[in-house]
């Protein structure tokens, strides 16, 4: 028990040590002293999370069971690293230029930002990874169990469970602490990567130590050990080509597609050039890792009693030989392998779960108009943390429910085959522009269904999730659908069978569905961005820029927010950073603040794209451009609205001006009218007043004079009355409130009456009126009194103004365009052309004033004729003054 306590103590110290390492790395990165953190060595070591507890413990077991086949697990990634270097480089470049956060993000971005696809990939990744996490927990608890049973302390199942829970909680805590310290745009976690790198060294060291101990301590040297190997079954070269090819393909594919591998390889990548080092260093690491696997297996099989689990030879061999310290180191190595995998896997999966499932749901539950655009960082962080806890807990749950027991390697392979389904979509996406979202969706769905049906479900054992009958006879007796013998092809290894069919059908359906459908515009653009990533993006530089970039930023900021504002901002920032000059370092903090500042003027997406372009840490993605276009469209819409509004205002102003002009004109006309009325009233009043005073003041007036002056007063009074009558009449006519008294009567009768009324008083006889009674036999239906008023006025005017010696007036009745016309033509000198236009205006008397008249007559005539639906106009070219009265057809219809 003493050793067991020491083991627990060492474990705790080791965990604390990891925390310190991670913390120191984070701190160094924060202070900008983390140059060494970004070395290719660290990058290469971080890739070693590929070697989990499965590789650490399981490889020996694998070798003990299946000979050299375990090597395939190392060959696959090595081939990818060496042979597919260009593919990795493309992945890394895309990941950086598009700010990809996970493999789900990559696939969804490529296929037109489809969140559905992202959710699908996330769910599949979780399904594929959960057993793997469970596997790690299992390895830790089982190895602990092995250790303790060696000291005679049998652990109960409950203790095992709580051990696993403890480990799970610790790993979740670590991941939360170092995986979600802050929200880095580039999703880099220096602490985690550093801890993983240290663990990589620890596990390599532990495995080497055990190997050296086995070969030289137990095997008796290299040649002895080689002899033992030759003697054992493992030494016999038994190679099944199909299985080897499948396994190499599978491990290579998994190396590319595993969420945790994507995390360290693409997301955490600091520099594309690190790949160059890793392409030889990582295969070398794998080679060293695999170096002592066979010796340990052979010596273990020799040494250990029959039936002991070869998966834990790394641990049990030193224990059995009483080498506790080495066993403890070995345990720490296995522990390191397990923990580093869980940490990175939880980190990668939580990013996917949080970004593609939790956040979209959270955002959609926010009411519209809530501060979604505001700071959601705390929500994102919380969602990440919860996701980490959930992912780890899911692994723990799987471990508890499955009860362990299955060989480590087989769980690992099932997981590999699961994530390998991402491969066609991934490769197709970055090399084939024709790949569509539908294709990706169909391919992934088909691949995963077949994988689950042929590999995952049967792995639980016949009789659990799939019945025995289904395995041997197929579902519903359809033998060609047997999970392990599609289309009746029997005798195939179940793994090979599953991988072959799932990848084949996955790829085929992906291609066919892509060819059948058409990509959306966004997909086209994204596809081009991904496939031609090397043409579009320059070599990405580190986010931390130089002062030269600050100058560029300054120039840009000045253009956008104004020179003074920009200078103030930069000076303030420089002061905050403690810089002596006027230009601050382009620290992420400053860039963020600047971006916010610019966003106020040009919109968030545009600001981000602009800064990204200058600093170069991330080039402009299609999504950015789309957002920029959106913003621009909004601004254009806004400005066109403004334009429309200002046009409307201009129109209103124009209308107001016109209305004002009209009002001014009306006001002037009113003034002029009042002035004229005043004049017309004052003139007769002047006579009246003057003669009244004469009559009053003069006592020497003759009777004749008295009569004459009284008559003048009388006439002028009448003139005043007439004027007032005319004014009132005109006002009524103009206001349109006139009531027409429609009657029937003959035109002749009206003219008779008009002539008689007009030609009264002195000189009435002088005027000769010429008429043709035959034409006047027309019955009219109109306001006869008003029409008569017009006729009287016109005849009266002729009498007043005709200057001929023998005045003569012709009244002619006729038709013009169907309408009835009555012309009044005298033989005088007529009205001069210049005055013809104004005679119908109020108070426009013409020529020499021989006769009294207010000048309202023709104005009244015109108003009356308008009311009657006709017209009165001057008829030029008739010798004397000539007026034509036109009556509408219907007025004269009764005549026929």
């Amino acid at each position, binding site marked *: 028990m003493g050793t067991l306590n020491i083991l627990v103590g060492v474990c705790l110290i080791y965990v604390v040590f990891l925390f310190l390492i991670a913390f120191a790395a984070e701190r160094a990165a924060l202070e900008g002293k983390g140059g060494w953190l970004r070395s290719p060595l660290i990058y290469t070591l971080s890739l070693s999370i590929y070697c989990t507890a499965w590789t650490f413990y399981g490889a020996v077991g694998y070798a003990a069971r299946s000979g050299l086949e375990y090597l395939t697990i190392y060959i696959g990634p090595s081939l990818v690293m060496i042979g597919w270097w260009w593919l990795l480089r493309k992945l890394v470049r895309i990941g950086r230029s598009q700010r990809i956060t996970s493999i789900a993000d990559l696939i969804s971005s490529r296929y037109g930002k489809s969140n559905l696809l992202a959710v699908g990939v996330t769910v599949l990744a979780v399904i594929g990874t959960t057993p793997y996490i469970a596997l790690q927990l299992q390895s830790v608890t089982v190895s602990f169990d092995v250790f303790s049973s060696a000291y005679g302390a049998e652990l109960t199942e409950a203790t095992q469970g709580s051990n696993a829970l403890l480990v799970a909680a610790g790993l979740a805590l670590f991941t939360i602490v170092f995986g979600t310290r802050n929200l880095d745009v580039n999703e880099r976690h220096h602490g985690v990567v550093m801890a993983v790198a240290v663990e990589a060294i620890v596990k390599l060291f532990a495995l080497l130590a055990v190997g050296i101990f086995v070969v030289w301590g137990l095997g008796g040297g290299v040649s002895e050990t080689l002899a033992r190997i030759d003697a054992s079954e493992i030494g016999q070269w038994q190679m099944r080509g199909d299985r080897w090819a499948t396994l190499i393909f599978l491990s290579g594919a998994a190396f590319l597609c595993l969420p945790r591998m994507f995390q360290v390889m693409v997301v955490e990548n600091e520099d594309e050039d690190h790949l160059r080092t890793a392409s030889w260093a990582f295969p070398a690491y794998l080679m060293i890792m695999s170096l002592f696997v066979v010796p340990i297996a052979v010596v273990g099989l020799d040494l250990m009693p029959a039936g002991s689990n070869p998966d834990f030879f790394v641990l049990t061999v030193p224990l059995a030989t009483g080498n506790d310290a080495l066993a403890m180191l070995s345990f720490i190595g296995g522990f390191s392998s397990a923990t580093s995998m869980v940490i990175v896997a939880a980190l990668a999966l939580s990013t996917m779960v949080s970004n593609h499932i939790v956040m979209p749901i959270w955002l959609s539950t926010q009411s519209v108009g809530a501060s979604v655009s505001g700071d959601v960082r705390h929500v994102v962080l919380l969602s990440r943390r919860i996701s980490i806890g959930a992912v780890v807990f899911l692994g723990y749950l799987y471990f508890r429910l499955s009860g362990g027991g299955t060989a480590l390697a087989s769980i690992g392979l099932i997981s590999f085959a699961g994530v390998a389904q991402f491969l066609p979509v991934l490769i197709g996406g970055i090399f084939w522009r024709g790949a569509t979202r539908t294709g990706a969706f169909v391919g992934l769905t088909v691949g995963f269904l077949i994988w689950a049906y042929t590999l995952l479900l049967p792995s639980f054992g016949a009789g659990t999730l799939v019945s025995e009958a289904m395995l041997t006879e197929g579902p519903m007796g359809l033998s060609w659908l047997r999970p392990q013998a599609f289309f009746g092809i029997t005798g195939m290894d179940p793994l090979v069978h599953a991988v072959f069919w799932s990848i084949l059908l996955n790829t085929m359906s992906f291609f066919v569905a892509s060819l059948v459908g058409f990509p959306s515009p966004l997909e086209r653009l994204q596809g081009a961005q991904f496939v031609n990533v090397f043409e579009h993006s320059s070599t990405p530089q580190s986010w931390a820029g130089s002062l030269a970039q600050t100058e560029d930023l300054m120039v840009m900021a000045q253009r956008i927010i104004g020179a003074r504002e920009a200078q103030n901002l930069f000076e303030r920032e420089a002061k905050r950073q403690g810089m002596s000059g006027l230009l601050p370092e382009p620290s992420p903090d400053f860039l963020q603040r600047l971006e916010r500042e610019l966003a106020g003027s040009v919109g968030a997406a545009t600001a981000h794209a602009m800064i990204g372009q200058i600093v170069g840490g991330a080039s402009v993605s299609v999504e950015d451009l789309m957002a920029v276009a959106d913003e621009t469209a909004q601004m254009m819409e806004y400005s066109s609205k403004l334009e429309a509004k200002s046009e409307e205002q201009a129109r209103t102003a124009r209308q107001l001006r016109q209305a004002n002009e009209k009002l001014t004109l009306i006001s002037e006309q009113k003034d002029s009218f009042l*002035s004229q009325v005043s004049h017309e009233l*004052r*003139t007769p009043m*002047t*006579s009246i007043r*003057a003669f009244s005073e*004469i009559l009053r*003041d003069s006592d020497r007036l003759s009777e004749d004079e008295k009569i004459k002056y009284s008559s003048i007063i009388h006439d002028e009074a009448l003139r005043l009355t007439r004027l007032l009558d005319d004014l009132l009449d005109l006002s009524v006519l103009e206001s349109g409130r006139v009531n027409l008294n429609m009657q029937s009567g003959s035109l002749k009768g009206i003219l008779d009456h008009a002539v008689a009324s007009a030609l009264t008083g002195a000189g009435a006889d002088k005027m000769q009126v010429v008429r043709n009674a035959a034409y006047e036999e027309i019955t009219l239906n109109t306001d006869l009194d008003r029409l008569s008023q017009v006729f009287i006025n016109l005849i009266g005017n002729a009498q007043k103004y005709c200057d001929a010696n023998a005045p003569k007036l012709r009244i002619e009745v006729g038709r013009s365009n169907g309408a009835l016309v009555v012309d009044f033509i005298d033989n005088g000198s007529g009205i001069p052309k210049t005055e013809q236009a104004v005679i119908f205006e109020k108070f426009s008397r013409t020529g020499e004033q021989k006769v009294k008249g207010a000048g309202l007559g023709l104005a009244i005539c015109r108003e009356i004729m308008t009311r009657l639906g006709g017209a009165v106009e001057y008829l030029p070219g008739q010798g004397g003054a000539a007026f034509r009265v036109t009556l509408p057809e219907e007025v004269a219809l009764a005549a026929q």
Partner: protein
Amino acid sequence: MGKNVLVIEDEPNIIEAISFILSRDGWSVATHSNGHDAVGVVQNAMPDLVILDVMLPGKTGYDILRELRSEDATQGLPVLMLTAKGQVKDREMAERAGASRFMTKPFSNAEVLDAVRELVTG
């Protein structure tokens, strides 16, 4: 000292009234009733005073007055303007045109007489 007054006015009744009032007071009154040739008539007659209406056929009283004022002979001729338009701006127009006196119709006979006496003697 002359006692000749020229009345330029188009309303016959007003001409008659003014003629009567002035004649009774011993003035010799000549009349003219349109604007066209009014300036020539004034220059020929060279009266001691002109009573000038504003609203005349052919030419306004203001124009006639301005022409008279521009001629040396009639520059200082006393002119009494009569108008039926009683607004302030009409009085200003008359003053600017150079009227010696401005009266609004209807006028009081006594006032016209007083004004004529004042303008000629004084």
